[in-house]
């Protein structure tokens, strides 16, 4: 049993319904009924239409990092609720109920690990934690991850999956954009590579800061990527948006990202890019 499976078992994620009842699921891409085991086997990509299902941070780590090499950092950072924010519900309560669902790392997991041939510093968004929104904890964790990359002279990898800034932290969430962009500037001066991976969705303050500052920017097929959300744009311009607007392929066509990369090729692609950037030999295949 992998550590990821252990994690799933411990937290009980996905176990609310008896297994026998959820054998099939409708694919959001092709609308076909797909056997769940087939999707799981296929890195959570639809075997029929290549639709990339959203995955959580732990799964992402298992797809990218060599087994047994991931070491998590700063897992104890938690939001201090500086504005004492309350909408229909207290922010503190929102945080607590999210943690009860088994996501206790705020919206980002950071750590060190080995990707193929390269020791890397890694930041991976957890969309299940308040839509992957960026508040002080996310900004601080990313900044520390960048600083660790500088200290250890390792490349940096950030996998974005976020609706943007966390409104409940007001101006502090906004300032995380400036903070992370500033730290990246330092990384760049140390000539260390930063690969930015964009997954569905990457919007708002996350898109308009570190996500778009990669030395190389890769995106998963079909990922929604943009500054403003499609609904906001539709309301503003009062017309329907064109098909495929703000999808990874659209961004590629408009010169905004380097490549669209299938989930199964992501690790290999990043490994190759790092070898090319660092001028080291390229391994034949990466497990």
């Amino acid at each position, binding site marked *: 049993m992998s550590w990821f499976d252990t994690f799933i078992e411990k937290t009980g994620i996905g176990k609310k319904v008896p297994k026998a009842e959820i054998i099939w699921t409708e694919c959001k891409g092709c609308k076909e009924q797909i056997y769940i085991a087939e999707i799981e086997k296929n890195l959570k990509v639809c075997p029929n239409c290549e639709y990339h299902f959203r995955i959580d941070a732990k799964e992402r780590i298992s797809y990218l990092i060599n087994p047994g090499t991931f070491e998590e950092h*700063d*897992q*104890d*950072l*938690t*939001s*201090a609720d*500086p*504005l004492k924010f*309350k*909408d*229909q519900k207290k922010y503190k309560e929102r945080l607590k109920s999210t943690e009860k669902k088994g996501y206790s790392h705020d919206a980002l997991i950071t750590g060190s690990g080995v990707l193929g041939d390269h020791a890397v510093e890694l930041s991976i968004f957890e969309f299940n934690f308040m839509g992957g929104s960026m*508040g*002080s*904890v996310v*900004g*601080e964790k990313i*900044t520390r991850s960048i600083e660790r990359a500088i200290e250890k002279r390792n490349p940096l990898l950030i996998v974005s999956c976020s609706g943007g*800034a966390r*409104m*409940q*932290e*007001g*101006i*502090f*969430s*906004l*300032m*995380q*954009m*400036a*903070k992370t*962009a*500033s*730290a*990246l*500037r*330092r990384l760049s001066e140390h000539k260390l590579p930063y690969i930015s991976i964009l997954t569905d969705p990457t919007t*708002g*303050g996350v*898109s*308009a*800061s*570190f996500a*778009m*500052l990669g030395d190389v920017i890769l995106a998963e097929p079909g990922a929604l990527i*943009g*500054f*403003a959300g499609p609904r*906001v*744009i539709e309301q*503003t*311009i009062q017309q329907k*948006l*064109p098909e495929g*607007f*703000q999808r990874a392929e659209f961004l590629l066509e*408009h*010169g*905004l990202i380097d490549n669209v990369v299938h989930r199964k090729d992501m690790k290999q692609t990043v490994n190759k890019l790092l070898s090319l950037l660092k001028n080291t030999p390229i391994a034949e295949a990466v497990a």
Partner: protein
Amino acid sequence: MQILDFEREIFALENQIQDLVSLSHMYDSVGDISDEITKLKKKLRHMKHDVFTNLKGWQKTQVARHPDRPYTLDYIERIFTDFQELHGDRHGGYGPSVVGGLAKFDDQSVMIIGHQKGRDTQEKIKRNFGMSQPAGYRKALRLMQLAEKFDVPIITLIDTPGAYPGIDAEEKGQSEAIATNMYSMINMKVPILVTVIGEGGSGGALAIGVGDRILMLEHSVYSVISPEGCASILWNDKKKIEQAADALCMTATDLLRLKVIDEIIREPLGGAHRNYKQAAIGLRKALRLNLKALIQFSPEELVQKRYEKFRSMGVFTNGVG
């Protein structure tokens, strides 16, 4: 002039005083009417003071968005001399929602850059209501790089509802433009003095908002999202604007308390739109003092301090560790 809800009483009293004044001009024998006028004027001052020192988030937002509020070009005209506007991002974009150029501030050359809203309908459309396309931010960056090259301090004035959410803006890389500006501003080897003069709308504000000192005019606001946007997303109710504005802590007083900004610049009683000249004098004084302080630092010190300023933004707890 547009009258805001909470200003009704003030305007009624102002009208009453005006009527009495014209009356006193018409007749010589109105007796002690001038005493009455003096009394009412005093009452008006107190009333204005009471109302305007206790404005809540949503009321401040309305003042910050007041159609008669002075905009960037109004301040430039009153504070600087020899303004030479410079245009274009050099990549096919004009960027009319942001204005910028070189000017003299006292005897010092400065690069002044600010969002520009429109005054009449035609100009509002031309300026896209102060909501910039990527070209505006790229123009701003080009001008800042020009300033850095010639060792000229940068002054930015923030007044935008936000970056423009549109198809072409996305196609041309709105996110990249904003991100690149922050990434570049943090490292500029010249002083950068930032002032929010009206609306500080999210990423569109930050795109010219990374500096050594962040000042705010008394009735300006600065927020990650508009109260309207916040109300409709978090409350699912567009009417909860006032609650959202309060919750977001978007006033200058809130942000000074949270240590996100450095200084509040007083506005004339009743708001900057009531007296452009006095508003400009207040801003000029604050800019002068802060610029004088910043010029003392070496480029390396500036960059280091600016980095530390933004590095320390955020509030969290360290759990058990």
